[in-house]
């Protein structure tokens, strides 16, 4: 590794580390402030989350209030959380009574798997499709993929997921419907998310392939004697990949939302699902913990995107 490369890597790390720190504080404060701003009595919500609608009542809410010290001033509760966070302690789930870190650690793994699977699926779809469309702009492939992109952008993830299950699990029996017992379980949820992501990223790739194909250097590569295939693999793809990889960074934010839906449809024990439940149940510790984890995850994945961009583009211009 050259020292210049080390330097850019280090710069990227430093920048993201600072961002991570800001994220930690902002996420903590924002999620806490918003939870405080929510109307209604938190004790009721927490009791509801714990005991379910058959067992939850005012007495349960009172017990919860007493147990969790919800009567404490809000600012004190926030201070306790931040202080604990500095010691890498995320606290205890108000609803489930288990340490937040335990809840998150298993779920994060599953969510990462799903997010990773989704990105891989989106690339597996977007790469060939985007390249084929970009190589022949306004051709039949381009037009069809444009239509499909619109289609997959407009279909909500849950409907898409169910249709995929119907086709691939029920009719063809190729993959399981739901659950998470093996790699085959990852296919359909990843595909559901991946199709949604690819609906946009294939157009980004298509555009950058069109640009690359029109570039002077592409023609020069041909006229200096490289075949179409070699020109594509040695020059066009690398150049065209850059905007796509950078775009993955933008997509990550949307991925989180998609994860929530897909986790619910496919009964996948992920962190997005946990976040939604935590918000509904006013489980402040879990909200803060999951939001923090998702925020840091976003930062970490963006770091990967940064590094990938730097790997593809040695000019070091992309900050």
């Amino acid at each position, binding site marked *: 590794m050259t020292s210049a490369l080390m330097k850019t890597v280090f710069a990227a790390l430093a920048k993201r580390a600072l961002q991570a720190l800001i994220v930690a504080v902002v996420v903590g404060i924002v999620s806490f402030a918003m939870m405080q701003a929510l109307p209604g009595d938190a004790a009721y919500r927490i009791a509801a989350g714990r005991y379910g609608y058959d067992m939850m009542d005012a007495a349960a809410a009172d017990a919860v209030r007493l147990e969790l010290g919800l009567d404490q001033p809000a600012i004190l509760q926030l201070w306790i959380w931040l202080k604990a966070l500095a010691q890498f302690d995320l606290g205890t789930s108000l609803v489930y009574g288990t340490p937040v870190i335990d809840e998150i650690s298993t779920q994060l793994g599953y969510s990462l798997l799903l997010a990773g699977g989704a990105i891989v699926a989106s690339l597996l779809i977007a790469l060939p499709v985007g390249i084929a469309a970009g190589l022949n702009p306004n051709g039949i492939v381009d037009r069809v993929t444009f239509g499909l992109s619109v289609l997959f952008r407009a279909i909500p993830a849950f409907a898409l997921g169910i249709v995929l299950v119907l086709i691939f699990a029920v009719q063809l029996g190729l993959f399981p419907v739901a659950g998470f017992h093996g790699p085959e379980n990852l296919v359909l949820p990843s595909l559901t998310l991946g199709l949604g992501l690819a609906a946009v990223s294939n157009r980004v790739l298509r555009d950058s392939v069109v640009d690359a194909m029109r*570039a*002077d*250097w592409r*023609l*020069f*590569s*041909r*006229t*200096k*004697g*490289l*075949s*179409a295939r*070699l020109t594509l693999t*040695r*020059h066009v793809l*690398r*150049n065209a990949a*850059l905007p796509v990889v950078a775009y993955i960074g933008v997509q990550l934010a949307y991925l989180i939302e998609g994860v929530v839906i897909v986790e619910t449809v496919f009964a996948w024990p992920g962190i997005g699902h946990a976040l939604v439940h935590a918000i509904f149940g006013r489980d402040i510790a879990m909200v803060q913990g999951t939001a923090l984890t998702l925020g840091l995850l976003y930062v970490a994945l963006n770091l990967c995107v940064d590094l990938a961009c730097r790997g*593809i*583009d*040695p*000019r070091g211009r992309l900050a």
Partner: protein
Amino acid sequence: MIYSIEVNALSVYAGKTRLMGPISFNLSNGGTLVIMGETGAGKSLIAQAILGTLPNTLHAKGQITVNGRRVDQMRQSARRRMWGTVIATLPQEPWRALDPLMRAFRQVSEAHHYVGGKKRSLANADTAKAFETLGLTGAEKQLPNTLSGGMAQRVAFAAATAGNAPILLADEPTKGLDAERHTKVVELLAKVPKEGGTLIAITHDVSVTRRLAGEVIVLRDGALVEQGKAIDVLANPTSSYTQSLIDADPKNWPQSEKQSDLAEKRDVVLTVENLAVARSGKRLFEGFDLTLRAGERVALVGPSGIGKTTLLDAMAGLIKPEAGTVTRAQSQSRHTVQKLYQDPPAAFPARIALKHVLKDVARLHKTDWSSVLTTLEKLGIHPSLLDRKPDEVSGGELQRISIARALTVGPKVLLADEPTSRLDPITQRDTLNMLETMAAAENFAVVLVTHDRQIANKWADRTIILT
């Protein structure tokens, strides 16, 4: 005698409209053909027709025979297989022809490997040799964006010729290069026929034609104007168009009148004292002094990268000088120092009709629109052009419009940063002539930055050489 390339009645059509031709030529090993003409004369269409890279909307007629094979009857894929191995192409603006993400060495060595069919080790060795021969040592790991124009040209040359093609097509190989690099590239090209290759060069530069010698074809609006030995044609052109091309070579310009008595007659409009400028922390030069008087024409000459543009920016007050002062004559507003740019389209908002741009300026400086139109007329611009957007008029026209725009302000100093280096020779001459006329008429000083000493000598009252 076997001719390596024979072109017979080649013409290019868009539908039924003939854009270029018909032209014919025969070139044998060691031969050189220079195709001359202005931008838009269809020169590049010849190259595209020979290569088979014409856009789909165009088609070629006529016969092209390379080494006895009828290229024009070949399938597209077969023609493409000749690229790099039979016909090599040296692109114009080579810094845009190199893959921005690949290091210089690999861009050449991949051609040796894949096109030359050499093993990796041999390809690398040959690339290293080429880098050494071309004076590129040290540039192996550089990316195109860090290469100078001349280096990029040589890297492209090394990559293009790696396949050992007997025919080299060079399209405007000297475009945008400074005088020194200009010479080097021409020397490089001149070697090709000497080493038994065949060179087809496309240029608008008479000096290139002169130095490459060989045969010459002069095109105007796509039509053949003149053809023959370069020496003969340049010495005794039969057409007036060829003559005007020759006249447009700065070497052949008439000497402008040197205004030598300015110090007594004219006011000082700008004083530069002990100026030092820096770019990204690196000091470029220091101790620069200049006193400009109204109506004076000063040329600043120096190679690329020396900091001419930065100096102009300091004089325009766009950047703070590192040291020294730039003083405008009293009672001048800061808008009296204006700039002309090297790339005229970049100096205008791209998506707005030119009319609006000029009207904005006229309104701001309370200049009568009719007087703007008068200026435009003097510069030979028809008002109807103003309805177009910058990319819909030619570079020469746009540069003249930008002169008119600057004049709307009533400038005392016009800083011209290589305003004609991207223009054809004839346009270049006309534009500078007009600038001279306007400076005299409107009594403003011009600082012309150029890398061409010929232009400086012929055009300016005095020349400052930056080293």
